[in-house]
């Protein structure tokens, strides 16, 4: 038989691996810095290097730069070998690599500058969003083109996970990035309040699922058998694992919003599907671990297997903890606390970090045709990494549960036992230091990895994998035609069963029972027929499907779309009605400017704006939050974390001068606070000539600003600012000024004044003239 030689494109794999190592070190270093900032506030260096601006940099760097580069490298390495084809285009591969690095660099520049959408893990502004989309499309084309050129007919299960990743991340990114640009670096989310919260956490949760989990599972299904030199424990289990995850994961997003103003039905769906995730996740974990059956002895010496075994174990741990935290009563205790931080770092450091390390230690020697420079160093890395993770997780568990219990503790008379929020922060201070030590240990291990890999590469030379394959493959005409697959027996049988089940829900009594029985009989008959055909010569439907990348992709897309659409559409439908009936009114121009300062400084990284329906929560913060409170919020600011207290009903709680002094030096007002000081806001001014365009953009996304309000926005903002500044000058003897000069303490049109206006508005609806105006307009319509 005539054969041909295929040389894999391993150059781009090497590039991605090195980029991942580099950004891994940087991302984790930023992590250590933000951990230090929480334990020791002077580590905040305003204006650029405060916690609020660096925390998004940390999360983006480790997710998209470290894990992103790692998964691109892993996907390209394994897929070329699994399908016996070279990456389709060297140019596309290069664009993919360099484009992605450019996006990372732009994140490194823009996030500390405060250019952010304030949507977690999606903070990058709209021009970068477009760039991400472009590069993702390049990646998809390059990948599917390679699949089209494949010499191996069957798509190995790892490739299914990669396909799901490519499709889902694209959908998530596009939907969550619907935003209206105001300037070159500023946009407002298209979604309002509760909608935005749901879409954001549908995205946020599935970014974890389809960026940090499914591609790494694909990598596990390839590299773990390679390293253990034995096939995966159960290929059948991997199929169930795949479809289970794809269909269930997409629903679970609302578990980030339990006890919030999100409608109950969505919360319940999120919780139930999260619990269901236990099954496929643990199926996958066991499949990974049991692949090592008979190879456990190798674990003693082989650092690669050590990392993989521990990584998969941490996967099991995180996917146990995730559903646990999604139980409403557990969420009531854990949400907004450091327990969540413990959870994500179990996944991030344990699963992603260790799987990356295992893959690098396995692949780099092969990519340079040599042996690992130092096994001892790799083993040492494993141990300090593990100790680092344990210190990190355990300290954050203790911190989180302590916080949660202190927040809800009430005395015998019913009052809060710890009414001062700072008390609950001081209680966990030792845990913040312990976490810092854990993080430092983990980072040191990773630096050791970098050193080890560099010396490994130096001891060899770049080498690209090759394989020999038969030239002629079977002609494409012999494939099962796609309509036969798309309308195959299982699909038709399923549609009938679905129709019958659906009818069962709609009708009562006898009809319902009859439909249920018919559905059952139909289902049993379909199964029986398929079992009868089992040994026939016909290729089974799913088997044929597993060889057809295109149709497989279509079905995966449907799978991931149903959950998202089902949850998001009801919310999109209901919000306009809430806007029509709400007593709330849009922010005044100055408040809107202040809100943009709040967003820029990343205040949401420490302060929530969502009071949950618990007595201890309303005793501390005020009336429970409703959908209407945030109905004009683009983006929503519900937050996910309380390093500081909730701000949903902060308005009117303190005088302007309290806020003024607190922003200048938080510890003067609130001793023990770890909030960074923001004195520079008093001197940096707002260009109010942009305010009308901001109102206009808000109007475009559905906030009912009136045209005359937009026209007079600039004057109104200036007038309100002058009023607040005058009040501060009178009541607190603050020296205010219009122009910068000696002795000036507060500029009238400063960001601080706008921020105070916003903070004083939180949770309050202005009375009554704005309302009257709105009603007049309503009547005029």
């Amino acid at each position, binding site marked *: 038989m005539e054969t041909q030689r295929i040389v894999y494109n391993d150059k781009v794999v090497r590039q991605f691996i090195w980029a991942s190592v580099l950004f891994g070190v940087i991302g984790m270093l930023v992590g250590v810095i933000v951990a230090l900032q929480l334990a020791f506030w002077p580590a905040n260096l305003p204006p650029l290097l405060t916690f609020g601006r660096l925390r998004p940099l940390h999360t983006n760097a480790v997710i998209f730069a470290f894990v992103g580069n790692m998964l691109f490298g892993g996907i390209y390495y394994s897929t070329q*070998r699994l399908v016996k084809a070279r990456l389709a285009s060297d140019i596309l591969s290069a664009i993919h690599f360099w484009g992605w690095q450019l996006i990372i660099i732009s994140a490194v520049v823009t996030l500390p500058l405060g250019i952010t959408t304030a949507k977690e893990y999606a903070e990058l502004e709209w021009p970068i969003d477009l760039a991400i989309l472009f590069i993702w499309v390049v990646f998809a084309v390059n990948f599917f083109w390679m699949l089209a050129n494949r010499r191996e007919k069957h798509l190995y299960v790892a490739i299914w996970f990669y396909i799901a990743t490519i499709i889902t991340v694209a959908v998530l990114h596009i939907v969550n990035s619907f935003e209206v640009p105001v300037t070159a670096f500023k946009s407002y989310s298209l979604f309002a309040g509760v909608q935005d919260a749901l879409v954001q956490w549908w995205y946020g949760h599935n970014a974890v699922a389809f960026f940090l989990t499914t591609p790494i599972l694909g990598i596990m299904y390839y590299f773990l058998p390679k390293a253990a030199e034995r096939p995966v424990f*159960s290929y059948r289990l991997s199929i169930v694992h795949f479809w289970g995850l794809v269909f269930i994961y997409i629903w679970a997003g609302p578990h980030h919003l339990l006890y919030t103003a999100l409608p109950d039905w969505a919360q319940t769906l999120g919780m139930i599907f999260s619990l269901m995730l236990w099954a496929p996740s643990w199926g996958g974990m066991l499949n990974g671990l049991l692949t090592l059956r008979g190879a456990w002895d190798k674990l003693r010496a082989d650092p690669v297997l050590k990392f993989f075994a521990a990584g998969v174990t941490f996967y099991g741990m995180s996917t146990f903890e995730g559903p646990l935290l999604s139980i409403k009563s557990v969420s009531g205790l854990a949400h907004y606390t450091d327990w969540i931080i413990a959870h994500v770092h179990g996944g991030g450091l344990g699963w992603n970090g260790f799987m990356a390390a295992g893959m690098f230690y396995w692949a780099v020697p092969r990519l340079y045709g040599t042996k690992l420079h130092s096994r001892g160093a790799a083993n040492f890395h494993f141990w300090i990494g593990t100790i680092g993770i344990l210190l990190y997780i355990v300290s954050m568990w203790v911190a989180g549960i302590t916080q949660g219990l202190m927040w809800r503790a009430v005395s015998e008379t019913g009052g809060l036992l710890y009414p001062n929020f700072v008390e609950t922060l001081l209680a966990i201070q030792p845990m913040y230091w312990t976490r810092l030590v854990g993080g430092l240990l983990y980072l040191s291990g990773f630096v050791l990895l970098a050193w080890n890999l560099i010396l490994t590469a130096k001891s060899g030379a770049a080498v690209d994998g090759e394989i020999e394959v038969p030239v002629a493959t079977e002609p494409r005409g012999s494939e099962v035609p796609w309509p036969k697959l798309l309308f195959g027996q299982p699909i038709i049988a399923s549609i009938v069963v679905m129709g019958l*089940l659906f009818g069962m*829900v709609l009708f009562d009594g006898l009809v319902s029972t009859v439909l249920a029985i018919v559905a059952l009989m139909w289902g049993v008959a379909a199964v029986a027929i*398929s079992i009868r055909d089992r040994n026939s010569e016909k290729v089974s439907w799913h088997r044929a499907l597993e060889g057809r990348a295109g149709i497989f992709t279509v079905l995966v897309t449907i799978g991931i779309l149903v*959950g998202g659409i089902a949850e998001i559409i009801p919310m999109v439908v209901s919000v306009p009605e809430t806007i029509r009936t709400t007593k709330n009114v849009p922010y005044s121009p100055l408040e809107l400017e202040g809100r943009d300062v709040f967003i820029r400084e990343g205040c949401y990284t420490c302060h929530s704006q969502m009071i949950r329906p618990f007595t201890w929560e309303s005793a501390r913060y005020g009336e429970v939050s409703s959908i209407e409170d945030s109905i004009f919020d683009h983006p929503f600011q519900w937050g996910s974390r309380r390093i500081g207290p909730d701000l949903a009903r902060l308005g009117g709680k303190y005088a302007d001068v309290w806020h003024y002094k607190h922003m200048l030096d938080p510890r003067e007002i609130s001793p023990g606070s770890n909030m960074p000081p923001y004195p520079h806001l008093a001197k940096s001014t707002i260009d109010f000539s942009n305010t009308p365009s901001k109102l206009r953009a808000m109007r475009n996304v559905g906030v009912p600003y009136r045209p005359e309000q937009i026209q007079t926005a600039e004057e109104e903002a200036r007038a309100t600012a002058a009023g607040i500044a005058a009040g501060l000058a009178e009541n607190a003897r603050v020296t205010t000024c219009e122009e910068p000069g000696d002795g000036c303490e507060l500029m009238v049109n400063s960001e601080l004044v706008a921020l105070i206006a916003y903070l004083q508005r939180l949770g309050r609806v202005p009375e009554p003239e704005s309302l009257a105006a709105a009603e007049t307009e309503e009547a005029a319509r």
Partner: protein
Amino acid sequence: MSRFAAELFAQSPALLYPLIALILFFVVFLVVVIRVVRMKASEADQYARIPLEEELEVPHE
């Protein structure tokens, strides 16, 4: 309409979507399980061995 459906849709008619999706998920999952149960051991083994195929020994560039 059944009482269950009436109560559900009273919250919002759009709750039809999650219902359809839930049933769709359930049925697809069933199909997958059937496929897996039917799969021959030899076939599964053959697929599971795909990653283990050896590459050519390539000297340094």
